[in-house]
């Protein structure tokens, strides 16, 4: 298990380095931060002046290795656009994105798992159809459209919730629902399918024969097994939700990491993009490991294997 984990970690690290080199190269090939810094009314000479002053005219490998050497010591460099330390810049942003991503995931799970369980317990009934409809809507509605509709209803017409900013928990309610709803269908279908399969298995029949109560059968015996794939999916879905948060952050002016990364790509702000790529790569590694360990906890067969 240890050798397996170390191997996984090494591969992940190589992936992170490769992604970092590719993103650095692509950014520099497609954008020009000197032009961004100089502004719209800048002449070609102004842009060249900025490029030279900030050392952006040096060979790309030198610029990359300088960044990499500093990153190894924990210094992620300085954003050329914001002129601030990247670590400091990302700190506040990460909190917003993680809050949104985690709350959206929790919302999706809280909505999807009970729906999936109920749909599995009462297959082909109106409850099942309702759960399926809810799920289909989540899949079909573009999240930005759903977000704007909720903004109009709850923010503008009813004035129950704030429309933009991240100052209080209330600011996260609409973005969380809009983002989380998008993640609901996959969880719901997986829970439903898993529960139906488990409920048809021999050991559940045995449990019923022993006279165990329905709640005990559903939640103690069936759900624990049915939910294992959901845990693995949750790690992947969190990645999608973090990616999708770019749109929510933009619509609701949340100023999170996703929006910063998106804007930094457009601005060719290499230091920020590189740092975000590094952070997300590490985040995925940790998430995947966490999912493996959790699966091992839930299913002893995995631990033994």
């Amino acid at each position, binding site marked *: 298990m240890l050798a397996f984990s170390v191997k996984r970690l090494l591969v992940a690290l190589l992936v992170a380095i490769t992604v970092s080199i590719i993103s650095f190269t692509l950014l520099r090939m497609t954008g020009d931060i000197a032009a961004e810094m100089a*502004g719209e009314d*800048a002449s070609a000479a102004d842009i060249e002046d900025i490029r030279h002053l*900030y050392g952006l005219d040096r060979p790309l490998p030198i610029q990359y290795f300088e960044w990499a050497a500093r990153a190894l010591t924990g210094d992620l460099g300085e954003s050329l656009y914001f002129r601030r330390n990247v670590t400091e810049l990302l700190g506040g942003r990460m909190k917003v994105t993680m809050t949104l991503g985690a709350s959206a995931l929790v919302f999706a799970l809280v909505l999807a798992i009970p729906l999936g369980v109920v749909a599995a317990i009462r297959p082909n009934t109106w409850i099942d159809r309702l759960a399926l409809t809810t799920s289909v809507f989540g899949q079909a509605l573009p999240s930005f459209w759903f977000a704007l509709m909720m903004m109009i209803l709850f923010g503008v017409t009813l004035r129950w919730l704030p429309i933009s900013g991240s100052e209080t928990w209330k600011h996260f309610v609409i973005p969380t629902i809009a983002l989380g709803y998008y993640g609901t269908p996959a969880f719901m279908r997986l829970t439903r399918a898993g529960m139906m399969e488990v409920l048809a298995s021999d050991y559940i029949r045995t449990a019923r024969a022993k006279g165990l109560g329905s709640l005990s059968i559903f939640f103690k015996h069936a759900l624990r097994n049915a939910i294992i794939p959901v845990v693995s999916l949750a790690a992947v879905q969190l990645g999608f939700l973090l990616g999708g948060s770019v749109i929510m952050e933009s619509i609701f002016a949340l100023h999170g990491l996703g929006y910063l990364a998106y804007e930094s790509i457009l601005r060719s702000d290499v230091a920020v993009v590189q740092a975000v790529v590094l952070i997300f790569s590490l985040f995925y590694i940790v998430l995947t490991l966490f999912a493996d360990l959790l699966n091992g906890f839930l299913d002893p067969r995995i631990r033994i294997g």
Partner: protein
Amino acid sequence: MNKHLILLLASMLGVALLWAPSAWAGKANDTLVYTSEREEPNIDVWYNSSREGIVVSRMIWDQLIYRDPKDMSYKPHLATAWEWKNNLALDFTLRKGVKFHNGEPFDADDVKFSLEFLADPANKTISTYGRKFIKSVEKLGSHKVRVHLKVITPHILEYFASSDFVIYPNEYYGKVGNKGMDLKPIGTGPYRVTFVDPGKIAKLERFDDHFEGSAKGKGKIKHIVWKTIPDKVTQVAELLTGGVDWIWRVNPDQAKNLKRNPNLTVVSSETMRIGYVGMDAAGRSGDSPMKKLKVRQAVSHAINREAMAKNLAGGGARVIHVACFPSQFGCNDSAAPRYEYNQAKARKLLAEAGYPNGFDIDFYAYRERPYAEAIVGYLHEVGIRAKLKFMKYKALRGKVRGDGKKSETSLLFMTWGSGSVNDISAITSFFFKFSSDDLYRDEKVRDWLQTGDTTVSPKVRAANYKQALTRIAEQAYWLPLYTWSMNYAFTNELDFTPTTDEIPRFFTAKWK
């Protein structure tokens, strides 16, 4: 996001909110909240060239002189008087009794420090004008300085009145530097900053000790908050619910909807930005039909600028005939030809140029797609089968400039705001003096502009600029379209007047 979808949603918002209850908290709290789209990197305007940075800088810091947006005249501000000593030296007498927000007194040391900081390449300021124009600053007394210029720059007063040359407190900036100034900006301006979260929000409070005799006057509103909201639809929603009091760059369709809301005022105002169709007369893009004068004239007659200005741009847009904004020094169209909309004439000119059946050509644009599409339509009607290539500004700018010699564009629709500089050196000289942006390469034009740019006498300057502008029009290097109009929307409790230089002055705004 899809533009049409944004318009649809904005329309829905507009309709939904006609009967929505209002919650205008701005006046009640004496707090004006305004918003912009872009996350701004710095408050320190020496390191921020953006429009939003300039807007906030005008509240926090001051310049030596103030350009009155009403008539573009220069007024004493931090300097009470100025005088040219020779073509390369300008003396400023500084105002006494002025204090920075931290209590530091303003004097000649601050001016010397600020201007020489901007002139020093080691400081890597984003504003390049200090490096371009300023050689050194000589302190002549506690409140008198002499600025030595590198080159004769007759329009230098424009820069002394701009955000490029704001005056910082030398002791404070020497101690805290750029990062300190970003987080706790200190100036002499009518507002002081109480809180900054870079890129997100800045809170300002009226500086009651702002100096007597200030051309800006004292602030009328107690608190001003600048909030970044990237999405335009969200901005509109916030305006409608009272979350913000003022937005700008409202597109015409949104403006129409917002006008129907009784709680809002929507105004359209002319700006210093102009649009033009550029034609590669020099043949930098190869053997283009645009090298022929008659083809360029045909293009100029083919486009109905009046109709576009009235029906597409709206507001304060007006057709122009020379390559500059009317209020700019030297902008004189009295001798320039007028290219009236005349398709028959355009077809005739094309035939005379050897294109009786027209020709195919790529047409580049980067903003206001409806305008670009209208131009394509007009060109098609006379036989110029223009194919629209719409792209981001910086990508198009790269194509125009090419390697400095060759260019990839021969026909394009562009705009220029002159950086709010009220002098044609910021536009005509920028494009017609053989820089990489110059697709025309006319030596006569270049020489006239060069004389205008480097002569102190206003009379000589004006005469040379007039000749240059007339020739540009005669040769149809550009077809100047019209001035740009900007829509502002704000709570109707606010008394706000937009200006042509696109720098909203919140320090003159007040509650009704």
